[in-house]
């Protein structure tokens, strides 16, 4: 163990002293951060909705370029040949390299988070423990793929070429570089067959508190990473100058089949609809659909269900309400990149307050309405509300809001029903069918 520990520390030290490792491991992610920052800095808060993508790019670079580049360079120079003479299974030394890489990637991710906060005021992760666990899982999964690259590449340029084969598709059409919502439908579906999409989803959940537990993304990454790690371990070559055996292709295919299986399962089980693409379908809502929505039989604003207070005015009519208004404005699930999902989350918040019988349930609903009108113009908000009404089961649903003291978890179908009631009350007001 002493030897392994020293080897682990040495790997870290040599990485820090390597100019190439610093450029690829730390500088390139910072360039991506600045590039994203220059595009998304106008959002409030800036870059919050892109941190999952940025962290995924950082991890992808470290695990699928940095690690295999180092490993192949050492193998081809004969360093592993010397290590093989040690009285220890060489696999443990590879484990030490991978562990060191987890630390390196995690430090690059931390740098990313701190720089985003310093440069653009991006908040720190809403759920630090979940974010750390996400970084570790995504790194482990991508390191498995890095092992496959290291096993297949005969030299360092080949690592770069193979790495790009994974990196570029994930960046362009895998939801890692270009946001899923901006991709055409076929690309959104295709991205479900690549690990990048699940990595972004998992990391984003840890960062902005997107509702849901991310278990499917975690499981998808675990399956893809484990298949790759198994394949990489079986194909690993210690000796320089050796080539991949002809019989290795079935193993490589096995690793790729895991991507296919995860993508197919996600597609058939509806997980691809639930991840990322969210409620962007509101854009297809027509005027006729909105006009057909009925407001009859809606509970009154002062009744037991779906209470809604009178307009509050600027400062609010009761003491302490300003704090709630601020908390709603800063509530992370309300700020997700997709306006449709963000609005649905806020409607769910009002629904949770209503089901909780919170003393301020009516005021909270009113503040949600005010907040929605501020962030989405009335025209877009009408479509979003109509979408929530017409497709109540789409998107994700918040069932607890501990940030506002609403800690009890309610049944999803009840919260969705209340969200629809509020959506109708808000839409009716926007379209002049209901008077305040």
């Amino acid at each position, binding site marked *: 163990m002493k030897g392994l520990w020293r080897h682990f520390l040495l790997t870290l030290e040599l990485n820090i002293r390597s100019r190439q490792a610093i450029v690829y491991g730390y500088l390139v992610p910072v360039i991506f951060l600045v590039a994203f920052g220059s595009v998304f800095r106008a959002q409030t808060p800036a870059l919050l909705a892109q941190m999952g993508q940025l962290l995924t790019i950082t991890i992808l670079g470290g695990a699928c370029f940095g690690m295999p580049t180092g490993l192949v360079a050492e193998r081809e120079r004969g360093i592993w040949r010397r290590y093989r003479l040690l*009285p220890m299974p060489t696999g443990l030394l590879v484990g030490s390299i991978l562990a060191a890489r987890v630390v390196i990637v995690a430090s690059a991710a931390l740098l990313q988070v701190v720089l985003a906060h310093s440069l653009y005021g991006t908040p720190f992760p809403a759920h630090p423990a979940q974010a750390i666990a996400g970084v570790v899982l995504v790194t482990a999964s991508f390191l498995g793929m890095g092992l496959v690259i290291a096993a297949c590449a005969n030299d360092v340029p080949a690592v770069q070429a193979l790495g790009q084969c994974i990196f570029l598709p994930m960046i362009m059409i895998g939801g890692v570089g270009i946001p899923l919502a901006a991709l055409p439908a076929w690309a959104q579906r295709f991205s479900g067959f690549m690990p990048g999409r699940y990595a972004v989803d998992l990391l984003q959940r840890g960062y902005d508190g997107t509702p849901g537990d991310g278990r499917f993304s975690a499981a998808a990454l675990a399956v893809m990473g484990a298949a790759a790690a198994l394949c990489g371990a079986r194909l690993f070559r210690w000796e320089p100058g050796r080539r991949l055996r002809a019989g290795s292709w079935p193993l490589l295919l096995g690793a790729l089949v895991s991507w296919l299986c995860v993508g197919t399962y996600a597609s058939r089980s509806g997980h691809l609809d639930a991840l990322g693409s969210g409620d962007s379908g509101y854009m297809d809502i027509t005027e006729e659909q909105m006009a057909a929505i009925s407001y009859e039989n809606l509970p009154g604003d002062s009744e037991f269900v779906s209470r809604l207070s009178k307009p509050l005015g600027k400062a609010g009519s009761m003491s302490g309400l300003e704090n709630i208004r601020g908390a709603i404005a800063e509530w992370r699930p309300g700020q997700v990149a997709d306006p449709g999902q963000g609005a649905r989350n806020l409607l769910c918040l009002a629904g949770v307050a209503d089901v909780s019988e919170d003393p301020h349930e009516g005021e909270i609903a009113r503040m949600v309405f005010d907040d929605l009108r501020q962030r989405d113009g009335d025209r877009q908000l009408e479509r979003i509300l109509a979408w929530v009404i017409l497709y109540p089961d789409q998107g994700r649903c918040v069932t607890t809001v501990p940030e506002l003291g609403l800690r009890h978890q309610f049944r999803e179908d009840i919260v969705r029903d209340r969200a629809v009631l509020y959506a109708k009350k808000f839409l009716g007001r926007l379209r002049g069918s209901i008077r305040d």
Partner: protein
Amino acid sequence: MSYGSLVALRDVDLEVSPGEVFGLLGANGAGKTTALECVLGLRKPDFGKIEVNGMNVAEKLGSVMEIVGAQIQGASLQDRITPRRALGLFASFYRHASAVMPLAQRFGLEEKLDAPFDTLSTGQRQRLFLALALVNDPRLVVLDEPTAGLDPRARRDLHDLIRSMRSQGRTVLMSTHDLNEAASLCDRVGIIDSGRLLAVGTPASIISSFCADSAVGPAGPSLEEAFLRLTGRPWSPGTETES
């Protein structure tokens, strides 16, 4: 032992005694390196058994490598690692390891202890690899072409080192294509050609066995002459491809 259809070693039956310096002689491509790599567990023979100190290499490689030190061809270290770090690192993997400073002094590396590996000369690197081979105070030392690329003085130093290993009771198994080196250093030698072990014995016994009736030059019969008799072609170590 074969690589695809190429048989690199065939019917090799050899025993090296404790405290002995044994040299494997042969041209490039003869199978010397492959034989040593089999002993070190780097390659698996197609059949047969290799034992070190009574332990089967294929079954107890970890235990075998605790008592074996090796310097092999084609091995290297990271550019930025220093001899001090390398010796410390490799020592930390063994149950019984030598201290870094005495080893460095013994191999004339004390002034280069903190120099990055990529700044060391060929001779200094070779000395570092020899020091690494002895870092676990091994009973068996395996050296593959240890004098390759060394200048005459470094060669002499290495010869002295191998003699000192013998005097310490260590077993040395080395390969070389320098017949004079083998004749002066080795207690016994084995001549290997095209993967076959053609002859094993002391240099003198091999010369007397195969050159007894030859007309010889002023220096007397030599291993070179014996090699010619055994293989049917003159000694030419560098003309074939590497094994």
